[in-house]
């Protein structure tokens, strides 16, 4: 349980375990997802997609009887390719046409779009479109991509790499001193983020407003508007992007979609609404787009396991194109900046490649590069601990940044704002009860299975801003986050923000923030978000930023409203503004029952202005205010994950016996929602660790096309996770809150892999590839046996 508790005067404020305002419509089947919306005259869209990973597009032949219902890139006059360049030196640029032109570069790339009255009929039409493809040699693997002479995904480039980055250092001295040297080759599989709701777009043109409206299941409506403007060649004022209820994001919906451009163009061309709803086959075969990393990593340590240096070559399979706005290089460049994790070291060298392949373009998935980085680093730390002959957590305790070093600037100049990392790990180790499992390990489980324990740690930068992002030179740099707050004439509060909620519960938590500042009942607060027509600009919902940034903006705007309310009430109550307190939905002369409700104050401002003071602030009860953290290097939440697993060395099956998380998210605005974020993230991390993989053959054909072969963890795969909180307030945010949304998904692959390797240690087995499927476990055991004989 958390210890953050709301104050007596603000029972529904920061720290309240408030039930969610959004639940009712979701529980009664009254939510408004894109697929639930339809309009008069609407037509459905189905795409013709490439069955090949790399081919020259020679011709597209439309059925003669339906040529006016099929569209190719040649039809899309005035449409520019998506360009998402990074400003980092050496970035290789290539645009992505929303429908393929000249070449296709991954399976599932859209070639043509077809419209009909129903989706089924649109798909019938798509099947009748003939596409001539001339196959080209395929780049199916990221290491193959970088080899000299590899076929080029983009022919005007000299090499299949969007970007190479280098952090260099002289390791000579460390190499001489290191008693322990551990080198590992680590690999993580390509995944599909697989929100249960896929993508979806509904577009129409409003001739009265001369405006294109694109309703899309997106995490970032304002960024989509900017991108649509660039690609469609029309002013942003003529575009409105609306995100309705969105059924999960996780990064999958943090992108300008080719389909958004296509449908936007169609709506303007045809004059009637058009809708496209992604199906699961499209998603899995054409959009498995995250997590695929390769590491050749060496850790240098002294004889006790104290880390001296890391040396790493890392490759990220970035796919065929650079996605807007994050670009193809965010992931790999992030690898080099965060690989050191929460640990101290003397030297650090890291070389990364964003490899270009004939696969879907990479997108940052919950945790972005951290999940792969944590996996690689924590495997190395366990290997070092084994060589040192010590418990892995003991080695980590000595390598972590210590509490008395906080705030701490690490070797890649990340500013860790607060916390006690060793204490977090100690608590997780104690909660798991490692000695108990070590005893069990000696005698195995009654059914003969082996037992292992594993730990992993990370820290997670959240809500980082301008100074972190401008250096990347990508199409999006976050600045101030804004909120527009308005008391309505009946004393309700409307909050308008440009970020969007797709499960995080912002309608609830931001109402709690408003309550904290204004004392207003959260039931009387309405959040209006996800609509570029009525909200301030925002880069959107990503990077664990909303509770810090939108929360800060709401607090800031509510403080302005509070001041205005005090000022108006001061005149009406004939009291000094400084003597007034806001509580229980009223403004009160402190220590008296002389008070006005917010409703009465609002009524006076809007309906009885004759009662206002002559010098009243003309801004009234509406204010837009911007917010940044006191420095924009990001809040750093952190967590220790510890688990015990059973491993069947005959069948290769892994079962999680116990799983403990101790995390520090600073001040928890709504502990119930924070718990939900951590649990849900951990479930996704367990999927990464044990189940989820999009395999490709040597022609880059995706080998999973349904949820029966791309396995998401279900209720029987995810254990009853035990969660504890530490709550070290961030000195950078308004209430001390830290970004927490991604952390759960970061450490499970590392913790579980370490536990599996611990269970198999006496066989000399070490698995360094995720997911840890039975096939991989048995192959590793067989390889170890061959090596030993």
């Amino acid at each position, binding site marked *: 349980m958390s210890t953050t508790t709301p104050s007596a005067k603000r029972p529904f404020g920061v720290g309240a375990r408030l039930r969610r305002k959004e639940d009712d419509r979701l529980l009664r089947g009254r939510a408004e997802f894109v*697929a639930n919306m339809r309009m008069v005259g609407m037509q459905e869209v189905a795409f013709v997609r490439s069955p090949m990973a790399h081919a020259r597009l020679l011709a597209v032949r439309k059925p003669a009887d339906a040529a006016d219902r099929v569209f190719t890139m040649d039809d899309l006059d005035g449409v520019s390719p998506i360009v998402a360049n990074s400003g980092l030196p050496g970035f290789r640029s290539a645009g992505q046409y929303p429908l393929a032109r000249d070449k296709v570069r991954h399976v599932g790339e859209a070639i043509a779009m077809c419209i009909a009255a129903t989706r089924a009929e649109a798909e019938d039409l798509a099947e009748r479109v003939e596409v001539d493809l001339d196959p080209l040699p395929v780049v199916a693997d990221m290491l193959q991509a970088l080899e000299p002479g590899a076929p080029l995904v983009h022919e005007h480039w000299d090499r299949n790499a969007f970007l190479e980055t280098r952090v260099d250092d002289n390791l000579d001295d460390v190499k001489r001193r290191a008693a322990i040297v551990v080198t590992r080759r680590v690999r993580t599989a390509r995944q599909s983020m697989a929100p249960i709701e896929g993508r979806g777009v509904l577009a129409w043109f409003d001739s009265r407003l001369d405006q294109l409206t694109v309703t899309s299941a997106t995490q970032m409506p304002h960024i989509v508007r900017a991108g649509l403007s660039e690609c469609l060649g029309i002013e942003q004022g003529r575009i409105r992007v609306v995100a309705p209820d969105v059924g999960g994001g996780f990064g999958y919906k943090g992108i300008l979609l080719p389909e958004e451009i296509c449908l936007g163009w169609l709506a303007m061309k045809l004059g009637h609404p058009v809708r496209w709803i992604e199906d*699961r086959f499209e998603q899995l075969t054409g959009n498995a787009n995250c997590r695929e990393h390769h590491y050749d990593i060496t850790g240098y340590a002294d004889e006790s396991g104290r880390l001296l240096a890391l040396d790493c070559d890392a490759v990220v399979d970035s796919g065929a194109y650079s996605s807007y706005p994050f670009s193809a290089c965010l992931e790999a460049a992030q690898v080099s900046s965060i690989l050191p994790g929460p640990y101290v070291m003397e030297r650090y060298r890291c070389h990364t490649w964003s490899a270009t392949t004939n696969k879907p373009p990479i997108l940052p998935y919950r945790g972005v590069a951290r999940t792969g980085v944590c996996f690689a680093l924590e495997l190395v730390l366990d290997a070092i601990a084994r060589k040192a002959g010590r418990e892995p957590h003991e080695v980590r305790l000595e390598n972590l940044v210590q509490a008395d070093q906080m705030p701490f600037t690490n070797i890649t100049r990340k500013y860790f704002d607060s916390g006690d990392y060793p204490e977090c790990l100690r608590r997780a180790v104690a909660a798991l009860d490692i000695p108990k499992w070590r005893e069990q390990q000696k005698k195995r489980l009654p059914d003969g299975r082996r037992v292992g324990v594993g730990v992993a740690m990370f820290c997670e930068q959240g809500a980082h801003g301008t100074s972190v992002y401008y250096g990347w030179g990508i199409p999006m740099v976050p600045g101030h986050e804004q909120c527009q707050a308005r008391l309505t004439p009946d004393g309700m509060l409307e909050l308008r923000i440009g970020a969007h909620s797709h499960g995080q519960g912002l309608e609830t938590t931001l109402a709690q923030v408003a309550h904290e500042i204004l004392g207003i009942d959260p039931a009387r607060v309405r959040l209006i978000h996800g609509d570029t027509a009525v909200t301030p600009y925002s880069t959107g919902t990503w990077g664990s930023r909303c509770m810090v940034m939108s929360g800060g903006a709401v607090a800031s705007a509510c403080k302005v409203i509070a001041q205005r309310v005090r000022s108006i009430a001061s005149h009406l109550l004939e009291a000094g503004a400084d003597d007034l307190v806001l509580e229980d939905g009223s403004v009160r002369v402190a220590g008296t029952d002389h008070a006005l409700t917010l409703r009465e104050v609002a009524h006076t401002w809007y309906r009885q202005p004759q009662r206002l003071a002559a010098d009243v602030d003309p801004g009234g009860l509406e204010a837009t205010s911007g917010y940044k953290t006191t420095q924009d290097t990001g809040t750093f939440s952190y967590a220790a994950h510890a688990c015990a697993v059973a491993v069947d060395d005959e069948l290769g099956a892994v079962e999680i016996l116990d799983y403990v998380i101790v995390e520090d998210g600073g001040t928890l605005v709504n502990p*119930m929602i924070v718990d939900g974020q951590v649990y849900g993230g951990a479930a996704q991390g367990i999927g990464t660790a044990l189940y989820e993989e999009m395999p490709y053959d040597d022609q880059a054909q995706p080998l999973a096309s349904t949820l029966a072969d791309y396995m998401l963890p279900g209720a029987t795969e995810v254990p009853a996770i035990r969660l504890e909180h530490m709550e070290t307030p961030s000195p950078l945010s308004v209430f001390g809150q830290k970004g927490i949304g991604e952390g759960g998904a970061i450490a499970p692959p590392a913790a579980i892999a370490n536990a599996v390797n611990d269970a198999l240690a006496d066989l000399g087995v070490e698995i360094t590839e995720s997911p840890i499927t039975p096939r991989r476990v048995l192959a590793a055991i067989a390889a170890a046996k061959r090596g030993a004989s």
Partner: protein
Amino acid sequence: MKPLHFTVNGKAVVTRVAPRTHLADLLREELRLTGTNLGCEHGVCGACTLEVDGAPARSCLTLAITCEGAKVRTIEGFDDDPVMAALREAFSEHHALQCGYCTPGMLVTARDIVIRLPQADEARIREELAGNLCRCTGYVGIVRAIASVIAARNSAAGGR
């Protein structure tokens, strides 16, 4: 197009349907009952679970034409149901939903568990949920919510 007569949420429906149309598409696109969400359209994720003749069914794998004479109940048809009311309360209390997309199907399955298996423990609840995927919650709140409704019903029955 073939004629179809069946009952949806207690109301008689007479319509015509293409033989290939699945029940979820008919409900969502023709009858505008959009509470039934589609997640995979191949019967794995469970988001489209609803009730056909009193038992949970995948509406994405159920051809509408096979529902002649059937009684179909969607998430919109449970507003007067006391078990569903208890589950909705428990789902909110235990934070058993985030994005809410899997929730209608999850609730129909949950109601079936509660009614059919009054002795279900946590392990059994998890087994029974194996056909409903949730990508947000990690199932923690869902399992707790269902267990709490089972416990409340058992305690009410025992006190009688």
